[in-house]
């Protein structure tokens, strides 16, 4: 098990009900972590609709996660 810091933004934050949390997880990669979180918080969004970010960089879903990582799941952009 490892501990990662997950930040929630925009509609994901509103669904989860908190802006961030430290999580103990056995997930191997970003896809596995999102699957766990989607089940825990009943997140309705498929992975295809989101982009993951790891330690301030947009990453691939199969990127391995390590103890201490900072992780976000980005909804589709709507700036401008």
């Amino acid at each position: 098990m490892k501990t990662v810091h997950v930040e929630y933004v925009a509609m994901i934050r509103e669904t989860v009900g908190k802006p961030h949390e430290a999580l103990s997880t056995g997930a191997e990669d970003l896809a596995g972590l999102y699957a766990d979180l989607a089940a825990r918080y009943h997140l309705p969004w498929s992975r295809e609709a989101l982009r993951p970010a790891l330690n301030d960089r947009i990453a691939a879903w199969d990127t391995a996660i390590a103890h201490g990582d900072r992780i976000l799941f980005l909804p589709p952009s709507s700036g401008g």
Partner: protein
Amino acid sequence: MLTLSNEPIDDRTLRAEHHAHTAGALVVFEGIVRNYSMGREVTHLEYEATPALANAEYECIVQEASRHYPLIWIRCVHRLGLVRPGETAIWLGVATGHRAEAFEACRYVIDHIKARLPIWKKEHYTDGDSGWINAP
């Protein structure tokens, strides 16, 4: 350079940052908040961003654009927080040697900003309802 700001955008100050005498064209795009959306009356927008990621993605977009167009100067400011109809939500200035490439480069950058920058917009309506735009 990208600035994320909770304050109103001062276009005169931004325009004054451009000094390059090698540039024959400066195209400025301002995205302005409308007072309606999909038939509903909008009272205000609420923007939020992840600043580190937004800055990194903006630099990627500028690097990509510079491979396609001979950019001389580029500057962008995006509002965060509460923004009301009539206010500028984004200011983008692109300077190049000639006008055709300035128009094209500005279009390229604003399109990629809207599609890729991790910034999210929530609309608030006169009936008290609200909703995230582009919610999946």
